[in-house]
Each structure stands twice: as structure tokens, then as C-alpha cells.
């Protein structure tokens, strides 16, 4: 009796699982092209307009648009969706490293194999961007939508109060200024994220590395080499070590510390400008290129790191043709002035400065224009599926020990480099 009942229960359980899988498959077959984007107010404003435009002009292949469901990170939510086959056809807000992971798992379409790919790139003036930075294992899996380079902001009131007229270019000049500006535990020198979240290193260590190395990459994925133990890597580590050692940055988080005028300087992306203006309208600041080590040539341009997010097409898509048509239309270049207007993020294209369609916007937004002018000297993140592992190690071996002064900069750089190189050699 018990055995029969248990068998029945197991049948019910199996039937439930099978039926739920079947029903989701049916849904996938019947649906429109599904398009997911970043859960951001500014980006959503643009995307909703785009989807509205597309759907009114293409009633035969409508797009179902939604923001990536809430979660700790977009990547984790997407992974779950892909694994459970409930993911979209197209998704934006994908960073290069994640695209590489997805490409390795063979869930992405190699976009350069699709008809008209290079025409679209040419139309949007991004051929060189793609050729130089977005090839992974011989193909392009992600088209960058926007770039977000980093620059350094200084509090204008503090500059005026201290009578500073010449802004620092090198680390030494910066530390000399901090001696005058900082007040112990009241006014700090530089906002530095002390958290151990792997992606935060894009906005501090790796950004200053790009500047210190003259735009050289921090990894060579093909030769499985890391470059954190070179002159630039050690200089950047020494810089942050000194910042913490001298108390120019606290070892705890202060939310919007720069905006609350508790800090003299901060490394920030263009995306911060609009939010800062909205939430702290009285804050006055000056934006300049990043700091470089003292050895850096005076006449050389200052490079920066530009985080970038792009759009991918999943090969699980049942409507690849329609999806690609939408992507071609999206990247036709005609919508980038609207994009800038609504999102204030810089479109990933080579002609931002100089193209007449952007002149009015940049005249009205001179701070964002400063960022656009750095794009020629902005380097992208290295495309590797091991991004998370590498930056987790960077946190563990270099960043956290430096914050607490547990390792010398030379040893931290050496340890991080050795461990990352080992990880690169062992593969994903």
C-alpha cells in the first residue's frame, strides 16, 4: 500500500516537472522577440521610446521589452534565466567579460557572421572600436552600446578656499595638495571604495592602472600574462597604499562622501554627473583627467579606463532574423542623439566630438563633453571569461591588504600578479 502510494507520488512529481517544462517550451515558441535592458530609470526612458517606435513601424515583428528582473547583479539574473530557458532573445547591459563567458558556453550568436554587420558598424561609426577591442576568439559577440570613462572630480569650494589654481597631474602634486586640504577625520582626500565587490576595481585600481601604463592592457589573455607587477602596477598600488596610510581615505564606506563635501577628490564616470546635479544641485566641482605617476611623460596624453556595456543575441532565440533586424535598426546611428538626451551616457562611437548631431547636446552639457573628449584615450576592459575570478583575486591579494597596510605595495603587486597568472594558465 505504502509502496503504491509512494510510486504514485513520485509519478505526480515527475509529471509536474515534465509538464512545467513542456508548458514553458510552448510559451517560448509562441512569443515575440523578447528584449531585456538594464534596470535603470534613465536607460528605461530611452528603451521604452525605442520599442514604441519599433513596434509602431514593425507591427509584424513586435518586441516585448522589459528591464532585467531585480537581483544582486544583472549577470546573475541572466544566468539563472538562461539556465532555466526563460531568458530573452536580445539583452543589453552585458559587459565584455560576461559576454566572453557566455560565448564560451556557446549561448551567443557571433554577430559578425550575420548579414550586414559591418555596414551597421560603419553607419554607427564604430568599426575601429569593434575591430580593436571587441573581438573574442575571432568573433564579435557583443556590440557596445555606451562607454563610461572615468575622470577625477575636485571640490571647487575646497580648491578656492586653499587658493589652488593649478590642478595636480601627478601623484606627488596630488599628495602635496592633500597636505593642505585634508582635515583629520573631517575632510578626506580621495573617495576610495573599500568594499571587496569584484567589479568595483574597474573604478579605482584598474582605472588608475590605465592612466599609469599609458593605456596598456592589464592582461594578455592570449599569452596568459598579467601585468600588475610592472612599473605602472606597483606605482598605482603605492599610490593607494599611501592614501590609506596617511588617512586620506577612511577604511569604511561613506555614501556619496564627495557630494556631501567630506572629500576633496573622487574618481567618477560620466554617468554620475546627472545624478549628482539632481541630488546635490549646490555642489560645485571641477573635472580633470586622471592622476599619473611622477615618471609619466609631461607631454603624453592621460589615458583612462572606460567601462562599457553592450547588446548580445542569444542563440536560443527562435526569432534570430527578427532580433537581428531590431538590432540593426537600434545601431543604425539615428537614435544616438535621443540616447544622449535621455540617458546622458556616451554612445560607443568614434565621432561624438565633431558630429553635428551631438553639438547642441554637448554645448548644453559641457561636463559630459569633457568625458567625450577623453574617448580617444579611453581603453576598454580586457575581454576574458575569467574577469570575476581575476578581480576577486585582485581584491584578495592586493586591494584589501593594501587598505589595511598588511602588505607592502611591491609584495601585494607580486602576489596578485602571480596568482592571477596561475588562474589564467589554468583556464576558466
Amino acid at each position: 500500500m505504502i509502496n503504491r502510494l509512494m510510486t504514485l507520488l513520485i509519478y505526480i512529481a515527475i509529471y509536474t516537472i515534465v509538464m512545467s517544462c513542456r508548458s514553458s517550451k510552448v510559451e517560448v515558441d509562441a512569443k515575440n522577440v523578447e528584449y531585456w535592458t538594464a534596470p535603470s530609470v534613465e536607460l528605461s526612458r530611452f528603451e521604452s521610446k525605442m520599442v514604441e517606435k519599433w513596434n509602431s513601424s514593425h507591427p509584424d515583428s513586435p518586441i516585448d521589452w522589459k528591464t532585467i528582473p531585480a537581483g544582486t547583479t544583472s549577470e546573475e539574473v541572466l544566468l539563472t534565466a538562461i539556465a532555466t530557458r526563460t531568458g530573452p532573445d536580445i539583452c543589453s547591459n552585458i559587459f565584455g567579460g560576461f559576454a566572453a563567458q557566455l560565448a564560451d558556453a556557446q549561448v551567443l550568436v557571433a554577430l559578425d557572421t550575420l548579414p550586414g554587420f559591418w555596414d551597421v558598424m560603419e553607419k554607427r561609426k564604430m568599426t575601429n572600436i569593434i575591430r580593436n577591442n571587441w573581438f573574442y576568439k575571432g568573433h564579435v559577440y557583443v556590440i557596445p552600446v555606451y562607454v563610461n570613462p572615468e575622470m577625477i572630480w575636485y571640490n571647487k569650494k575646497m580648491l578656492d578656499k586653499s587658493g589652488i589654481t593649478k590642478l595636480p597631474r601627478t601623484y606627488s602634486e596630488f599628495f602635496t595638495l592633500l597636505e593642505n586640504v585634508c582635515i583629520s577625520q573631517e575632510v578626506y582626500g580621495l573617495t576610495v571604495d573599500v568594499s571587496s565587490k569584484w567589479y568595483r576595481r574597474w573604478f579605482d585600481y584598474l582605472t588608475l592602472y590605465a592612466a599609469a601604463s599609458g593605456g596598456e592592457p592589464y592582461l594578455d589573455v592570449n599569452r596568459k600574462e598579467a601585468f600588475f607587477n610592472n612599473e605602472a602596477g606597483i606605482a598605482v598600488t603605492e599610490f593607494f597604499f599611501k592614501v590609506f596610510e596617511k588617512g586620506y581615505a577612511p577604511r569604511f564606506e561613506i555614501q556619496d562622501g564627495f557630494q556631501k563635501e567630506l572629500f576633496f577628490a573622487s574618481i567618477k564616470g560620466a554617468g554620475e554627473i546627472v545624478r549628482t546635479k539632481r541630488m546635490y544641485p549646490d555642489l560645485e566641482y571641477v573635472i580633470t583627467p586622471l592622476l599619473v605617476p611622477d615618471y609619466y611623460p609631461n607631454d603624453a596624453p592621460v589615458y583612462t579606463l572606460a567601462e562599457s556595456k553592450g547588446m548580445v543575441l542569444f542563440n536560443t532565440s527562435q526569432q534570430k532574423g527578427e532580433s537581428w533586424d531590431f538590432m540593426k535598426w537600434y545601431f543604425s546611428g539615428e537614435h544616438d542623439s535621443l540616447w544622449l538626451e535621455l540617458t546622458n551616457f556616451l554612445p560607443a562611437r568614434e565621432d561624438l566630438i565633431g558630429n553635428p548631431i551631438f553639438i547642441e547636446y554637448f554645448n548644453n552639457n559641457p561636463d559630459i563633453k569633457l568625458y567625450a573628449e577623453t574617448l580617444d584615450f579611453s581603453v576598454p576592459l580586457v575581454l576574458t571569461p575569467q574577469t570575476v575570478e581575476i578581480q576577486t583575486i585582485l581584491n584578495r591579494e592586493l586591494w584589501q591588504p593594501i587598505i589595511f597596510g598588511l602588505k607592502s605595495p611591491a609584495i601585494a603587486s607580486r602576489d596578485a600578479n602571480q596568482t592571477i597568472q596561475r588562474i589564467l594558465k589554468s583556464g576558466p
Partner: protein
Amino acid sequence: MKISKMFKIQERKIYGFVGYGLVAPYIIYTIIFWVYPFIWGLIISFKKWNIISPEKEFIGISNFLKVIHDPLFWISFKNILFFMIVYVPIVIICSLGVALLLRRIKFLQAFFASGYLMSYVSAGVAYSIVFSLLFSGDGLINNWLSNFGITIPWFSSPKIAMASIAIIVVWKYLGYYSLIFLAGLQSIPSSLYESAEIDGASNWTQFWRITVPLLNPAFTIILIFAVMLSFNIFTEPYMITGGGPLDSTQTFVMQIYHQTFTALHAGYGSSFAIVVAIISFTFVFAIRKTVEREISY
């Protein structure tokens, strides 16, 4: 066969159906959400798999060997033990204290008891955010403490970050454990206290000689809950410190989560989970062997 006997057999059958019918939803739930994932987890722990790829390479016990040699496994273990040392005694003493107080309350006992339970039913993510704001470097608590010239790096000092998290978890589970203790206290017959009083036993003696020994079932279950929770701690460190500073709040479940869903090493994450489950069961087994006593009133 006699008719009455046939009726009895029929009746037993009907009761059997009703019984199995009542437990069926739970059994189905267990099969779908526990048995199936457990078996699946066991299978993939011997494989190299990145969740999304259809390819799963069999690699034997390599994942398990990697877990044992992973420094983060030992760091997490050390952190969990530290968490346990802080959390378990505090939560047991405080919840027993609250239960003893609640027992003395004559009116609105249920109101106060459910009041303490509010923290237990609040969402982990929500209160983690509230606590991280309250205790942050420039949060309310430190702002107030700064009036006395003190600033405590609750979550930013590697030495005290885990203890701070333990205190938050004590806040969450205090009410729940108090209710278990209260139920235990209420099940102790009052005649025992009355006869002890007649014999001249002081309150202190009564507490140690009657209350504590007879609370053993409640104490054992709370100890097991607290130890298992220590092994499973995730939301609070994940939300508040992210495992830092200096990995001082890294936990087993955070590692399992990171390996599986961020680094996409699902096989390794599964083997990590299995090793942790074995350790956790060993602890529970040891507690039951050493602490649990049969009691009779």
C-alpha cells in the same frame, strides 16, 4: 470474515488514505525542491560544469580535493567558528532571559511574545540594508557615538565585522528562540517548583536544578538551530560586508554562491556544498550525542 472486522479494515484504509493525502503535498514538495536538487547536486559535484553549457566533463573527486585545498574554505570555516562562538552563547542566554521574563508576564503575554517575533519574520535583505546604514562609518549609531569621541568600525574592521553580524542575527532570532524556551518553560509542571519551595530551595537553586535540566529538549533544539544557522549564514554578510574586510566575513554559503553563480563553477560549488553539509551534520550529530538528554517529569 466477520462484518465488523471488514469495517475495521475499511476504516483503517480510509484513515491511511487521508493520512497520506495530508502529507502528500509536503512529500511532493520535498521530492521536487529537496530530493531532486540534492541528487542533481551530488551528480554535478563530480563534474566540471558552468551551468549554461550543455557540456559536463566528469572529473572524479577533483572538485572535492580542490575544496580541501582551497584557502577560502578554511578561512570561511574559521569565520563560521568565530561566528558560532559569539552568536550561540549570546542568543541562548538572551532568549532564555526573554522567555523567563515572558513567563512572569500575566497579561498580554501573547502580545509581547509576538512582538519579539517581528524581527524573525522581517525580510533578511531589508533589515540588512537598515543595519548597514545604521552601523556604517557615517551612520546614525556612529554619529551618536561621536558625541563621546568614539567611532566603532562595526563592519569595516576585520576584527569585529563578524561579531557585528552575529549581533544582528541575534536580534533576528531572539524572539523565535524565546518562544521555544517559553514553550519549554510552560511544559515544566508547577508542582515541581512548589515542592522545591516547600523544601526551602532558593530561586537560584530551582533554576539550576529544575528549570535548566528540564529545558534540555528546548535547549538542544535551539542549539542545533543556532549551529545550523551558523553554517548557513548568508544574507547578512552578503548584503552588509560582501565577505570583507579582508575576508573576515566570508562564509561557506557565500563561497558556494560565488563559485556557482558568479564564477560559474557549478560543479565545484556543489562539491563545496556537500563538504559543508557533511561538516554541519557532524556538528549536529555531536551536539545530539553530548547535549541531548531524555527527561521525564
